[in-house]
Structures are given as C-alpha cells and as structure tokens.
C-alpha cells in the first residue's frame, strides 16, 4: 500500500510539475482546473498501476553514505533531532521548496551546490564561525558535532542533485470551481436522467449560481491568457531594486542606459554591476552569498540568465526611446514603483487596451520639439485656440502600423 501511495503522490506531483508556471503565479488558473478534472479521472488508474521506478531513484548517493545517515541528515536539516537548546532548523531559513515569497537567505539547493565540492572543514567553518557579519548573527551559538555535520553534508550532497521540491499548491479557488462544476453536473444529471431529487427549485439555484460563477471564471481566465500581470519570478540572483534604486538612489538609467536612445532599455552587463561590486561585497540583506554570484559570473566570463518579466508579443513593436527619450515618461508610469520592489513584479497587464488608453490621453510636447512643426494644421488650430493640446492619438498614435509592422 505504501508503494501505491507513493506512486499516486508522484503522479500528482508530476501533474503539478507540468502545471508548474501557472500554479506559481496564477494559482487559480482555469487551465489548472482542466488538468485537475483529468487528473481526478486518472487518479484511480494511477493507484492501481505498478510503479517500478520509485525505489530505484530514491537513493542516488547511497554508495558513499548509508541510508540512515541520509535520514538523520535530513532530520537534522529540518531541526527534528532533539538537542535541547542547541537544536537548529536549517530549513526555517534555507527553503527546501520553491516559494512564492522572497526569502533573502540562499535556498537549500543553492548552498548544497556551493558546498558539494568543498570539504567538511569548509562547511564546519561556515556553519560555526562564518566570516560575514550577517551570517555570524544568524549562525550564532551553533553547536553541531562533527558527525552531525558529516550527516548534514551527506543530505546536502543528495539535495544538490535532487533540487528544490515543488511549491505547495494553493488551490482554494480551484476547489470551489471543481465543486461547483460537479454540483452543476449532478443537478443536470438529476434533471435529465436520475430524477430523484424532489425540490426542483434547488436545481434552478444551482444552475443559475453555478452558471454565473463558471461564466465569470471563464471570462476572467480567458482574458488573462497571454497576459501576466503580477508576474514576479525568482531571479537567479536575488537582486533588489528596492535597495539599489530606492535606498541607494541609483538612477534607473545608470544600469538601463539605453532607455533614452534605443528600442531596448538594456539589461546591464555584468561589467556594470562590477563598477560598484568591486568594492561592495556584503549585502545588508543577503550577506555575501548573492553578490558572490555576480563576482563569480564576472570572473568566469559567464552571462547571467536573468528572467525577463515584461514580455510583449513578437508582433508588437515597442521602443523605449520614443517613450523615455522623446515623451519624457518616467519609468514608473509603466513599470510601477520599482524602487519599492525587492523582487520586480509586472504592474500593468501590457495589453493593447492599456497601451491605447494611454495614447488617447497623453499629450504630446508639441512646442518643445521641432519635429512636430510638420503638423501645420494642428499648429494653426492651437494658435487660434481651437485646441489647447495635442494627444498622441491626434498625431496617429493609435493607428495599427505605429506598433505592428
């Protein structure tokens, strides 16, 4: 039975993995519901299917260390071994799962990878006598025996291979959706086939209410397809705009230097990071761990694979220099208060309606730029006082081929 349980949980995890992204930033996605319906249907199948792989994959590195060591290492990591005052829960600071919120401490996978090829001595030093100020504070009064550290290392080595566990699913809205859908189905079945339930008005309520709810959910989710308002993925380095742009007051254009002159605002090259981080090696929040990633990438000459947040479809042409350089818009008008964000979140939905609405209202700086002198009729009307301003739309800013070509 244990085996069966394992395989079915594995099945669900697999499903969730497939769902990955949706689950992560749109935990209530309709699409998920579709998959869930399918998965509930397939669930019994999974229960009775033979699973031959689960055990063979479980112990990856069991050759060097015994299974007991691993179990004990895991319990140590989660702070489950009672050691009186001395007990520590590593997992409370170092995530073992993907999380939706920001955790400044490096996650369990990151540290496992970092110390995989290092010795027990290195690990002992960093655990018991860390050099960085921030770590020294959090690792204060650590008292782990040599065997404990050995077992921890064994567990971490295994973790480095396995990677983070998937996020715990938040499925409240989804459950409601499924329940309502099932209710509607049951009531439909009762009306047409079963015909057992006496109080017909209940069906009316269920069908009406359910219908409204389902339609509402469909419309909302349908509109959200291809849009990712609120998208806030974990970046490979926990770079905080709040610290850099907010607290330190770095100008946006210092890093995104081509926003005024080019189509693309530009992601700063690692070399630009090093302008400051040649000196600044310790972060106030993340200690030395995150900054070390930048330095390492720079020294190795490797690029940093940032995750792009603001994505426009390929058929839409957007040029930063038009908006920042010519129109003089502030970055925040589209990107929101980035200087207050630790992890950047997409504020606007970047839909065409959102673009057009702005183009309808925004005024063009008609008198400051000689370019606009070509619009003689509008200049004339302004002189006469018939119009007091010219919007982007009036100079053709809502026409198809201004953005699509």
């Amino acid at each position, binding site marked *: 039975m244990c085996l069966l349980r394992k395989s079915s949980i594995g099945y669900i995890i697999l499903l969730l993995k497939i769902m990955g992204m949706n689950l992560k930033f749109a935990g209530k996605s309709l699409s998920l519901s579709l998959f869930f319906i399918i998965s509930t249907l397939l669930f019994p199948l999974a229960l009775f299917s033979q699973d031959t792989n689960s055990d063979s994959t479980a112990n990856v590195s069991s050759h060097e260390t015994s299974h007991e060591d691993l179990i004990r290492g895991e319990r140590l990591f989660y702070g489950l071994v009672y050691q009186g005052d001395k007990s520590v829960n590593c997992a409370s600071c170092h995530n073992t799962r993907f999380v939706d919120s920001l955790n400044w401490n490096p996650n369990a996978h990151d540290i496992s990878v970092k110390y995989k090829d290092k010795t027990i001595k290195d690990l002992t030093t960093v655990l018991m006598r860390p050099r960085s100020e921030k770590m020294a504070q959090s690792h204060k009064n650590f008292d782990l025996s040599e065997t404990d550290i050995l077992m921890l290392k064994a567990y971490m080595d295994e973790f480095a291979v396995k990677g983070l566990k998937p996020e715990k699913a938040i499925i409240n809205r989804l459950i409601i959706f499924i329940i309502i859908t099932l209710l509607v189905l049951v009531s439909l079945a009762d009306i047409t086939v079963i015909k057992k339930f006496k109080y017909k008005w209940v069906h009316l309520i269920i069908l009406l209410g359910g219908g409204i709810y389902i339609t509402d959910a469909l419309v909302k989710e349908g509109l959200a397809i291809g849009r990712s308002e609120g998208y806030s993925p974990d970046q490979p380095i926990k770079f905080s705009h709040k610290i850099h742009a907010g607290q330190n007051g770095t100008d946006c254009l210092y890093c995104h230097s081509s926003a005024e002159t080019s189509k693309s605002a530009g992601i700063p090259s690692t070399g630009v990071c090093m302008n400051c981080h040649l000196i600044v090696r310790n972060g106030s929040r993340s200690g030395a761990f995150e900054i070390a990633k930048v330095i390492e990438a720079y020294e190795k000459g490797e690029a940093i694979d940032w995750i792009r947040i603001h994505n426009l479809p390929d058929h839409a042409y957007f040029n930063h220099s038009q908006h920042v350089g010519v129109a003089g818009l502030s970055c925040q008008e589209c990107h929101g208060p980035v200087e207050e964000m630790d992890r950047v979140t997409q504020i606007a939905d970047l839909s065409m309606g959102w673009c057009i609405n702005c183009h309808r209202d925004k005024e063009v700086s008609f008198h400051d730029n000689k370019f606009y*002198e070509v619009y003689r009729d509008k200049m004339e009307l302004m002189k006469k006082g018939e119009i007091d301003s010219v919007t982007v739309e009036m100079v*053709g800013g809502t026409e198809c081929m201004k953005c699509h070509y």
Partner: protein
Amino acid sequence: MKNYYNSIEEFNNVPGQEEEKFEKEHKSAVLELFEDDIAKKPSSRRDFLKVFGFSVTSAAVLASCEKPIHKAIPYVIQPEEIVPGKALHYASSYFDGHEYASILVKTRDGRPIKIEGNTLSVFNGKGTSARVQASVLSLYDDARLKAPLSGNSPISWDLADREIINSLADINNSGGEIVLLTSSIISPSTKRLIAEFGAGFTNFRWVQYDAVSYSAILEANQQVFGKKVIPDFRFDKANTIVSFNADFLGSWLAPVHFISSYTSRRKLDEGQNDMLRHIHFESGMSLTGSNADQRIPIRPSREKIILANLYNKIADALGKEVFDVPECDLDIEGVVAELLGNKGKSVVVSGTNDTSIQLIVNAINLLLGNYETCVDLDNPLNLANGTDAAMEDLLKDLSAEKVSALILYNVNPAYDFHSSEAFVAALSAIKLSVNMSTEFNETVGLCKFECPVHHYLESWSDAEITPGQLSLTQPCIHPIFDTRSFQDSLLTWSGVQTSWHEYLKNSWKENYFPLSKQSGFEAFWTGSLKDGVYAYSGEKLKSPEIQYGSIAAALESVDPGQEEGFEVLFYPSVSLGNGKHSNNPWLMELPDPVAKLCWDNVAAISPMDAEELGILTGDVVKLGENFSIPAFVQPGQAKGTLSIALGYGHSQAGKVADKVGVNVYPFAKFIGGNRKMGFSISQIEKSIDKVELALTQTHHSMEGRAIVRETSLSKYLKDPASGNELHAKHESNHQTLYPDVKYDGFHWGLGIDLNSCVGCSACVIACQAENNIPVVGKSEVQKRRIMHWIKIDRYYSDSPQQPMVVFQPLMCQHCDNAPCENVCPVSATNHSSEGLNQMSYNRCIGTKYCINNCPYKVRRFNWYRYTNNKAFDFNAVSDLGKMVLNPDVTVRERGVVEKCTFCAQRIQETKLAAKLEGRAVADGDVQPACVQSCPSNALIFGNMNDKESKVSKMKADPRNYHLLEELHTLPSVGYLTKVRNVEE
C-alpha cells in the same frame, strides 16, 4: 494606344500554361489545402463536429501549457559601440570573383541582416544588384563547409597545415610545379601576398580563371593598345550606344555601375531634355536589349560580319582604309549615320568572347575617337582577369601530370569549366590538391584537403576596382564556422606568423598611407574603414603605340556566318549570375526580368521557329545527346537561335540549387583562343514530354488595361504630357460625395520614373531581405503564390518578332481611396493619417476579400506557414537561416494577407530619430528598401505634403499618371510615362 501583351500566348489569344491550369484547378480548388485523398471524400456534419471538437480541445490544452520563460541575457562586458536594439552599419566591399560593389552592412545584435550600397563610393553609389542584396543570405547557408577536411574526414587546422606545409616543401625540393588557381583577384594586398607566397617556391604558377570569361576583350586590348585591361564604358558621356550581345545592364561586368551611368542620360528631369540613344544587336532577349530604343535580333555568328560592315561604312565615310569583307544584308545605314553624328560621343561594345570581334569593336571605337571620352582605357575596370588560354594550358599540364600541387581558391571548375571531366580526372593524380571555397559546390570533395574559407562578411580584404579607387572589406560577424580566410592560409603555409589582418594593415601602411598625407596611420586606417572607400591618384601607365596589325588581320578574315540550323547561346542570368550563388533561395525564386521565369532554365526559342516546329512553352526539346531542356517561346528571340541561362543544373551545391534546371557549361567550347559560350546544331528535336514552368508573368495581371503609358522623345519635347492625355481626362472626372480627406503632417508618396527603371530587380530582393518575405518554392510559384511585395511587370508591345518592352515596378499603391479597405470585415486593413494603407496581421482572418477587391493585385496571402515548416525548407527552417530575419518586421503566420507597407518600420525609425534630435524629417531621409537599393534612382519616396520634396515635384510633372486612375482610387504611387528615343 499600343497593344501590350504579357506572353506570346496572350498575343496569339490562345490559352497559355497558366490559363489551362487555372481551368483545371477551378473544379477542385476548394479543398486543395488538404491531402488529395481527404479532398476526394465528401465531408459531413459529423466531420465538422470532429474537427471542431478537436480544435477546441487542443486549444484548451495549448492554453493550459506552461507559459514560456523568456530569458534576458546581457553581455558580460558590453562592447562600447553596441546598443541593444540599435542597428550598426559597417562599410565593406562585396566581391565574389565576378561582381564588385562597395557596400554598407546593417547588423543587428551582431548579425548582418541587410546590404546597402555605399553612397561614398563613386563606382556604384547607393545602388546594388540583386546578387549583392542576396549575398547576406549566403552567409547563413546551411550547406557551407563547416570545418577543414582531409578527404572526407574532419581534420584539425594544425594537422592540415602541417601536412600541407610538408607536402609543399617536398614538392618544392623535388622541383615539382605548384599551381595556384583562383578566381579573379582584385585585392591589391592579396596580389602582393600571392607574389610573396609564390616567391617561396622555385616552380610556381598563378592562374586566374573566370567561369564567365572576358578573355577576348583583354586579348584584343593587349594586341591593339598593349594593355591587358577591360576599359570602363562611360555611358554617361555618350550620346549613342551600339551594343552587340553585351548585357551590361543585367549581368555583364559591372551592371550596377553601368545602370547608374546609363540611366543618368535617360532621365528627363531637372531640365534635362536630351537622351542617349541605345541600339542593341543581340540574339536572346536580354535585360539590356529590352531597354534599347532600337533592338535588332541577329544570329551570333553574324555579329562579326555586321561589325565588319559597320567598320567599312564608317571608315569609308571618314576616308580611312576599307577592307574586303562579305556584304551583309542587314540595313545598318541608320546606325552608321548615328555613330558618325556622334563621333567621340558614342560607345560600340560587344559582349561576345571572341578576340577578332573585340578587335573590330576596338577598330570602330578608334575610328570614332571614342577612346578619348567614352571608352576609358586609363581607368580600366579591374574585374575578370582570367585568360582562357592560361586555363587550357593548365588543363593540358594537369592531364600530362606536370603539376605536382594544385591549390584552388574560389573556383568551381568541376561545375563551370567546359572540360570539367578531364579536370576532375586530372585532379586525382596530383600529389597535393587543396580546395578553398566558401560555398559547398561540385569541386568540394575532389581534393586531398578542403580548407573552407570565410564568407566575405566574415573576412578582411581590400579591392581596387579601378586604379586609385580602393575599398576595404571588413568582418561584420565573428566567423560562424571553423573556417579561415584564404590569405591566412597562404600566410600560414609560407611560414609567416603575422595574421592577414596585420598583413593588410601593413600593406596599406606601406603603399597608401604615404599618399594620404595624413599624420597618423591609425587615423588614416580607421577613417578608411569607416568610409569603406579611399581614393588616391596613382601614376598612369604610358600607352604604347597603337598596333593596327591585328585589327587588319581580324577584318581580313571575316566569314559570312551561319544561315541554316540553330545556334545556341549561353548567358549568365540576372538572378543567378554565373551560378556561384545558385543555392541562395532568394535568387532562385527571383523571376528573370524578361522571361519572368524562376526555378528553372529554359531554351528560349523565337516565335517564328516555335510556330514552324510546333513547339509550345513547356515542351521539352532535345539539343543533342543527353541534353533535354524545356522550350520557352520568347518574343524578340532571333530566328534560328536559342538562349539558355547559365548557373542551373547543380549536382552538389545544396538543397535549393541541386537538380534545378540544366547545367550547360559542359557544352561551351574552346575555339580560337577563347571559350565560346554556345554551340550550333542542325535541328531541334521535339520530345513528347512537357513540363510546367514557374512563370510569374501572368500572375496578378491587371487584365490588359491602360497601365503603361509611353511616348517618344520628339513628341515629348513638343508636349511633355504626350502619351499621358488620359491623365488630364481622368483628373477632370474625379468627383466624390465624400469630403476631401486632409493629411496633416505627413502624406507619404512614391514616384516611379519608367524611363529610369531598367528592370534589374535589385528592389525585389532588397524588399525580400528587409521585410522577411518567405520563399515559397517552385510548385507554389506555379500556383501564383509568389510572395514578393514588389514585382517588376514586363509588357511587350509591337510584333513578337521585334517587340518593344516596358518594365514597371508594381507594389501596393497605398490608395487614399482604397478599395481593399472597405471590404475587410474585421478592419484589418485601414488607412493611416499619413496616407499609408495599413495591414494588421493579427486582426486578419484571411477572408481574402481585399485581394479580390484590389484592382492592382498587389496583396499576397500566406497559404501556409512558411517559417519552421519542413515543406518549405529553404532558409526559414534552420536556426542559421533564420538569422537573416529583420527583427523589426513581424514574421507572418499562415492565413493572413500581407503586402507592401512602404517600409513602415523605416518611416517610424526615421521619425523617431528626428524626434530624438528635435529636428524636422528632411526630404530623402526616409528610404524604403526598394528606393535605397535602386541603382538608377527610378524610385523616389517622400512627403507629398512638402511641396518642395522631390516626390511632390515628380507628382507635378506632366508625365505623371496613376495606375487605373479612372477608378478614383487615388494612389499614392505615381508613374512617369516612358519616353523612347525613337523617331515617330
């Protein structure tokens, strides 16, 4: 009005290949998108439900898939000059061994994506040819050799070098001969390097070989003037051009250079009211012949007797010595009078590779005193240096196993040499053979070593096109494959440690920097690199005494030529040239400007012969053993002649070129010291086979309405609006119930001068490169689905025996009262406040109503997805091929309509640049791709609201008219009537 026709079938009013097929197709066209067996089955409501259910389910599943994670990967250290999202232009030079152009290379994010002409170049200016435009795609050719090979197995450069160096040393010690066989080399630094390389060996020979040879001109000038050069023909200084089989506007020598000087004397703007007169004798219907004021079809073998008679008549009139030559029945009195009236202001030119003919041409030009002005021997064209006899000698020595080492560079004798079989056989016996080629071709794999060289966009080089006119080639991308430049290989093999880049710099430092009188070399070097060109005035070679002996000999031995049988003539086509770039899908799908044929070569036959022999277009004819080729009835083809394009019939060049058409190079012959591109046969055999050709001439036809307007020079001088009387009439009829639309700010317009357009088709490829236009392949072209946004229409008038031709570029007319716009049910096509007819692909649902309602037939429909589709594996399937895409232009999906946008992306880019600088957009700032590439400035683009702009002036010209203006569509494109320099 003249009667214009598109094809001989239209002239004879019989159904052509197109119409016949259309009749057939009409019945089963509905389900053509499905496989045949599906189409045959009747579809029912249940089928519909099945398909519907499946699509809904798949849509749901697709929507629930993971959202793709996009990465934003910055540089580690960003190069100073690179700004992401901004294009960088590098000045460079194009030379493929045959054609030269000084160019600008547009790169985006480190990828070259577009070629433009270099305006600083006095040689070609902003103009380019179709081949130059398409060369950027050859860079991303999957077929290219990716690493050095020894035999067929990969080898490292180090190992290959060691073996080659040892082998060369062995051969040199034993006194064996080392031969370097290259295409024409016009790089002075490379020439120096080759001299140094050769000096390292006791027995070294350098042979230059051209697939299409100009050997006879070199030979004739050597004999008469003591200079082995090809003169520059200054058509801009000439009043009369008499040309014999020289397709100088299409593919002969330097077409772009010639087009700009030729059309500068054919324009009638800015007060110019005289035109040069162009008389053309030729067999096949060439691009140049189509532009002539008077075109006389002749048999190629009759060229010499006509020229000799021409000489005699002129000599007679000038009181010079007359030779005893057979009489010629052709009336050439008019030509004689024309030439005599323009002594010193005329050009006689022949494209035939026959020394005696070239000698007579020289004699005539000497008589007329043309060498003082129009035929420039002091500033010769440094193209085509190969002499045919040298190559023959080499073949003899190779066959006799006298050569121990053969190094090939940029040549493909296994394909384009007439004795290719003997050459290939001789190769295997050679001790050391090395092939250096950029392209994958028939010669690859025949040598002991393959040392692939960079594409020109990856390499350093220089060029001296005429003495004193230098230009540089610089790399615009890091080498994509493990290749090495030819020069670097030579340096390595001669044991020199410096790189070719250093060598080139030193060469300029020693030879040209002292002439520049600049203080620092680095400033001189970067300045020259930035400009791409550098001019100096070198010492002129003193001309020895003119030798008349050989001329007399040539004139004394004139045979009357052939009267019976057929003469077959080969010519390099405008699209594929000599066949070096046949694997380029853009060029392969570029319709020949005259025949309007792509994806095949044919034997063009005269309408008279075709009628006599009962041959129709598409019938396969036999021209000898193992030589079958489809016939094509070509109006204007001389009776008794057949013309066949070179460059087709590759067996090993890549997926596009292989097995397309017939290779006719093996039928060339070495006669009288020159390679003759052609042969004679007594009769043609018609076989029962028939093939369907990919002809675009009747695609998107305007159904024979008055779309071409023309007049003669004399009539034009009397009344500038002559031939264009309809314009005034239609203008007076324009009435509308609607209020006039006023365009505030910009109102974009395009003016096209039919007098300047020679039909070279550079704009077609420029547009294709700029706008990500897909290649659709032969079978789709046959279904009239070619996607080109701009096409050059060709109309014949007068008799099919001696037709007159008009070329007319046609693209979306951007009508201010556009018929397409008001039939679109989803408003996917609508009008902008700048007068553009906009097309929004994402709104388009593919009803094709707009295509039906467009009177100009300029809209194209995406019948398939042409990108990432294995069925269209030309260049848009592999990652490499897609690197050429312009990131500013959407790649269209299946099921949407597309068309010319006036390069909206360029308009927006220019406007934005002006806004950022706080200035007005100047006239000429915006140049759509077609306008920029045009060597003859036939297309002018600008703001029609600005009354001072060039395009406004063009629109105000009395010659201006619009296509189908009686329909009141108010097009933004205007045409200027064609004026011919003929007596009427």
